[in-house]
C-alpha cells in the first residue's frame, strides 16, 4: 500500500496493525443504529457494505462524467468509456490476468456462469458427457449445469464432502475421468466456508481435456486470487460481495475458449457489422457485452478494488482467519450450537454456518436483528448441500474486513439472550 495514495483518499494508512476501527469509519452504514443498537453486520457473504470512496465514485460519475460508453465522440462519453475500461484493466491486474480482453463484465457471478453455460456448454456438452460438480455448490453454479445436463442428456457427477466439510477426494479417480467434459466448483463455499483445492482439481480435470469453471464469488473478496496459479478456464465473481456496487460481475475466460464461443446476449456494441443476411461480432471482450452496460457501477467498482488492494488481500485473509478462529471458539462455548464446515481456519473462509437444536435459524436471525445484528438464515441457495448436511436451514454469520472481536462478542451475548427469550 502506498501511504501517499492512502492519505489522498482518506483510507487507512497503518501498514502494521489491521486497524479495523479505522476501516469501520470508512463505511457510513456502520455508523447507523438498527433497532436501537449499533449495526453489527455479519451478512457479508450475501453482500458487503460499501466504503465512502465507492459511494463517492458513483456520485462523481453521475455529477460529472455520465454518458453512454464506447460510441461517443464527446467529452463525457470519453470520460465514461475511460472509467469503464479502467475498471476492466484493474480487474485484470487484480486477478493477475495480462489480457484485458479476457475480462467480461456481467451483471453478477450468476450471469457470468450462465454465459459459460450458454456460450460454451450449449455447443460442447453432448449426450453421455459427464459434468462434475461438488456437493457444496451454490445454486448459481449448480442449476445452470443440471439444467444443461438434462437438456443434453449429460450426466452430473458430484464430489462428496467429508464430515468435516472438505471435499472428499478419496474416490476422485472415479469421478473425474476421461468422460469428464466439465468441472465446475466453488473456490470457497458460501455455507461451509471451505476453501477448495481448485488448482489441484483443475490439473486433474485438464489431464482429461475437461474445461474447469471456478466460482470465485466467495473467494475473490477475501484472498489473493491468481488466475494463473489456479489454472482454471473460467472464473466468475460479483462486485457487490467485495465492496463494489450491486449489478456488476466478472467472467474471466481463456481467450481461445471465449473466441470460439457463441455470444450470449445479442444487440448493440457486441456486433461488428449487421445486415439481414450476415452479422459479424465484435472482438473480445465486447462480443459478450451487448447493450448499454452498468457504466456507473463498473466505474465505481474500481475504487472498491483499490480499497482492497490498499489494505492488501493477504492482510485481509490474515485478519479474517484470526477473526474466524475467535468466532469458532466463542460459538463452541454455547452448548448445543452445531457449527458446519472445517474447524481449521487455514482451510476455510469467514462464512460460519451454525444451528441451534431447538430454535429455527429464522427465529435466530429475527431475534439477532432486534439486537442490531444482521446474519442470514435459510438454505443459502445451496439446497443440495443442505440435504447432505441433513438440515433444512442454517444460520450464517459471515465476516469481512470491518468486523471485530467485539462484533463476535455481540453475537455471542445475543445468542445467550435468545435462549432465554425463547425459554428453551
Amino acid at each position, binding site marked *: 500500500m502506498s501511504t501517499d495514495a492512502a492519505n489522498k483518499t482518506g483510507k487507512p494508512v497503518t501498514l502494521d496493525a489491521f486497524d479495523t476501527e479505522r476501516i469501520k469509519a470508512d463505511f457510513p452504514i456502520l455508523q447507523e443504529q438498527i433497532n436501537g443498537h449499533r449495526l453489527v453486520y455479519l451478512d457479508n457473504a450475501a453482500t458487503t457494505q460499501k466504503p465512502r470512496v465507492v459511494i463517492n465514485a458513483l456520485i462523481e460519475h453521475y455529477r460529472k462524467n455520465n454518458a453512454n460508453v464506447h460510441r461517443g465522440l464527446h467529452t463525457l462519453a470519453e470520460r465514461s468509456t475511460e472509467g469503464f475500461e479502467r475498471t476492466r484493466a484493474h480487474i485484470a491486474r487484480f486477478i493477475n490476468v495480462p489480457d484485458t480482453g479476457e475480462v467480461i463484465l456481467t451483471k453478477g457471478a450468476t450471469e457470468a456462469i450462465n454465459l459459460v453455460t450458454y456460450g460454451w456448454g450449449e455447443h460442447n456438452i453432448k449426450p453421455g458427457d459427464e459434468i462434475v460438480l461438488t456437493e457444496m455448490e451454490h445454486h448459481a453454479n449448480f442449476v445452470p449445469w443440471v439444467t444443461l445436463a438434462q437438456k443434453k442428456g449429460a450426466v452430473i457427477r458430484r464430489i462428496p464432502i467429508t464430515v468435516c466439510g472438505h471435499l472428499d477426494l478419496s474416490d476422485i479417480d472415479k469421478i473425474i475421468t476421461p468422460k469428464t467434459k466439465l468441472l465446475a466448483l466453488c473456490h470457497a463455499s458460501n455455507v461451509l466456508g471451505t476453501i477448495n483445492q481448485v488448482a489441484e482439481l483443475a490439473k486433474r480435470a485438464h489431464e482429461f481435456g475437461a474445461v474447469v469453471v471456478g466460482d470465485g464469488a466467495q473467494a475473490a473478496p477475501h484472498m489473493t486470487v491468481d488466475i494463473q496459479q489456479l489454472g482454471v478456464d473460467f472464473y466468475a465473481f460479483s462486485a457487490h460481495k467485495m465492496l463494489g456496487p450491486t449489478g456488476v460481475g466478472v467472467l474471466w475466460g481463456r481467450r481461445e475458449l471465449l473466441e470460439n464461443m457463441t455470444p450470449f446476449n445479442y444487440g448493440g456494441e457486441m456486433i461488428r457489422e449487421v445486415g439481414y443476411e450476415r452479422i459479424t461480432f465484435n472482438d473480445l471482450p465486447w462480443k459478450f457485452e451487448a447493450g448499454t452496460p452498468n457504466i456507473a457501477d463498473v466505474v465505481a467498482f474500481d475504487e472498491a478494488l483499490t480499497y482492497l488492494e490498499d489494505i492488501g488481500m493477504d492482510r485481509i485473509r490474515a485478519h479474517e482467519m484470526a477473526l474466524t478462529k475467535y468466532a469458532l471458539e466463542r460459538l463452541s462455548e454455547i452448548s448445543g450450537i452445531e457449527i458446519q464446515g472445517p474447524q481449521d481456519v487455514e482451510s476455510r473462509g469467514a462464512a460460519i454456518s451454525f444451528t441451534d437444536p431447538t430454535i429455527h435459524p*429464522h427465529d435466530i436471525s429475527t431475534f439477532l436483528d432486534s439486537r442490531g445484528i444482521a446474519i442470514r438464515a435459510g438454505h443459502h441457495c445451496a439446497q443440495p448441500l443442505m440435504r447432505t448436511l441433513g438440515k433444512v436451514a442454517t444460520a450464517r454469520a459471515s465476516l469481512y474486513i470491518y468486523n471485530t472481536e467485539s462484533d463476535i462478542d455481540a453475537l455471542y451475548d445475543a445468542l445467550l439472550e435468545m435462549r432465554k427469550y425463547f425459554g428453551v
Partner: protein
Amino acid sequence: MSSNLDDMYREIILDHFRSPRGKKEVDRADISSDGQNPSCGDELSLQVEMDHDVLKDVHVSCRGCAISVASASMLAETIKGKSFEEVKALAETVKKMLKGEPTELPDDLGDIEALQGVRQFPVRIKCALLAWVTLVEGMKSYENGHAGHTTVSTEDGNGKTEK
C-alpha cells in the same frame, strides 16, 4: 426498540411454540396433508379424523420456526369439533388477517389473534399460513373424494404469493 419483536413473538405464541398442541395421533386419518415452505425449510404434517362433517380430531406435527410451529398448534386447538364450513370460513379469515386484508375477526378466534403481529414481518407470513394452507388443501381433496395424501408447497421466499 425490540417492541416489534415482542409483537411477533407474543407470550401466547412462545407458549404454543414451547408446548405445541395436537401432538396426539388421530385414530383414523380421513384427511392427511403435508405442507412445506421450501425456502424456510418448515415442514408440517397434518391428519384429521372426520365425524360426518365435523373435524373430530386433529394431529399436527411441525418442524420449523416458532411462528409455523405456534400457528400449527393454534390450528389444532381451534378447529377441533368445528364443521367443515366453519373451518373453511375460519381459514379464510386467518388468511385475510395475516395478509392485512380487511376482515371481521370473529370472537372465537382465540389465541390465533396473537398471530397478527406477524404482519410486520412479511417474510414470516407464509410461516403463519403454512398449517392453514396445508389443511385447506387436505379438505379440498377430501371434499373431491380423493383418498391419500396431499402435499402443499408454499411459494419460495418472497412472502408475496402462495399457492
